[in-house]
């Protein structure tokens, strides 16, 4: 016999927990924080090891040198590198603490004045990102914790007035999906590949995912050209998706390449 009772959406009486309202507060907090950011650009690939983080840091520095304010959020929570790339202290020098003031985290200020936040600033030396929690079935809740960490890095960091906030995504598509959900709309996407056919195939999937979400595609950067990597991934992807091949970055790129790229964003 079917159960004849009111269901979830039928119950509209005030609830002290207010879970939906708590989620709403989180979303409004994130949206308010992003109001001071003029443009959010996700640097993605779908393929690991193509130099996304390197490109992100150098493009951010070029934007800052060009007189605009640039920020970098290192969304590669498990393999963070932006502190190494952007912090002024070379080598193994101490990383800066993150200042908490007036209910917000103040981003670190790196080379050329780029503001940045990375889990590399939060984690003990050499330690992985590990969460407290039940040992059994960690796979069930681990992803949710990472998405929550990304939400906090977006909502709780006072970027201030920022012309371009670059988000350095890890390989794969999951973080881009989380980011799009958290922002309420997909960010613009700057795509990085290396010349090889393997990279082309992986990046193609990422571009299709970004297209399916309705993201604005800013163009392709082909990295690590002129060396041992053979192929025409950059040209192939640009042609296939009707995009501009913004730059072919050699192994020893000049500052001019970055300055030109920075001026395009």
């Amino acid at each position, binding site marked *: 016999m079917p159960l004849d*009772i*009111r269901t*979830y959406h039928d*119950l509209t*009486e005030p*609830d*002290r*927990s*207010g*879970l939906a309202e*708590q*989620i709403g507060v*989180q979303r409004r907090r994130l949206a308010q924080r992003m109001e001071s950011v003029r443009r959010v650009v996700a640097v993605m690939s779908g393929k690991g090891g193509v130099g996304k983080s390197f490109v992100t840091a150098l493009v951010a520095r070029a934007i800052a040198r060009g007189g605009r304010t640039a920020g970098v959020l290192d969304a590669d929570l498990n393999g963070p590198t932006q502190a190494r790339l952007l912090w002024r202290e070379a080598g193994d020098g101490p*990383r800066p*603490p*993150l*200042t*908490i*003031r*007036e*209910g*917000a*985290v103040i981003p670190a200020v790196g080379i050329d004045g780029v503001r940045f936040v990375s889990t590399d*600033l*939060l*984690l*003990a*030396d050499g*330690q*992985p*990102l*590990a*969460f*407290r*929690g*039940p040992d*059994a*079935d960690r796979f*069930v*809740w681990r992803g*949710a*914790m990472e*998405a*929550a*960490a990304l*939400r*906090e*890095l977006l909502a*709780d960091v006072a970027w201030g007035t920022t012309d371009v906030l670059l988000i350095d995504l890890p390989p794969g598509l999951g973080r881009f999906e989380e980011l799009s959900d958290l922002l309420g709309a997909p960010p613009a996407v700057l795509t990085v590949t290396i010349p090889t056919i393997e990279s082309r195939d992986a990046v193609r999937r990422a571009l299709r995912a970004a297209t399916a979400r309705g993201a604005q595609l800013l163009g392709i950067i082909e990295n690590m050209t002129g060396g041992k990597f053979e192929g025409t991934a950059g040209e192939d992807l640009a042609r296939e998706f009707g995009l501009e091949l913004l730059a072919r970055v050699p192994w020893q790129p000049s500052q001019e390449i970055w300055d030109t790229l920075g001026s395009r964003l």
Partner: protein
Amino acid sequence: MKFLCVECDRQMSFEERALPGDGTLAAVFRCPACGRVVAMLTNPMETQLVASLGVKIGGSTIESQPLEMIRSSVATGRETAFEEREPPSRSSAAPTWSPEAQDRLTRVPSFVRGMVKKIYTEYARDRGIEEITPALMDTARTELGLEGM
């Protein structure tokens, strides 16, 4: 999640929650019509999933802290990751910490200590409590849903 008293066809109201310290959570709900009480008990994995959403069953009376989930959940945090530079509150004098409470606070990892101290201080100040003791910390922890703090 909501609870319905089927007999009365009334949505049950949240009453209180308890954190036994073993990763589980108990939340008590009461029917406003007949007074029937039920307890929802979540296992550690379910409790963790709720925590990952950054929400608290039963709500919270104080504003969330910056990076609250990260600071309270990351087990591999750097000791010197944060520098707290909150201006002193002008609304009322800060409560004092009893020696026992101070001792307990020193056992909190420094990655999260500043946040924990601020939460307990605000909790005491909001209630006009002049001294923070371990008993008060226990009460606040349960009332605010601060598992692991």
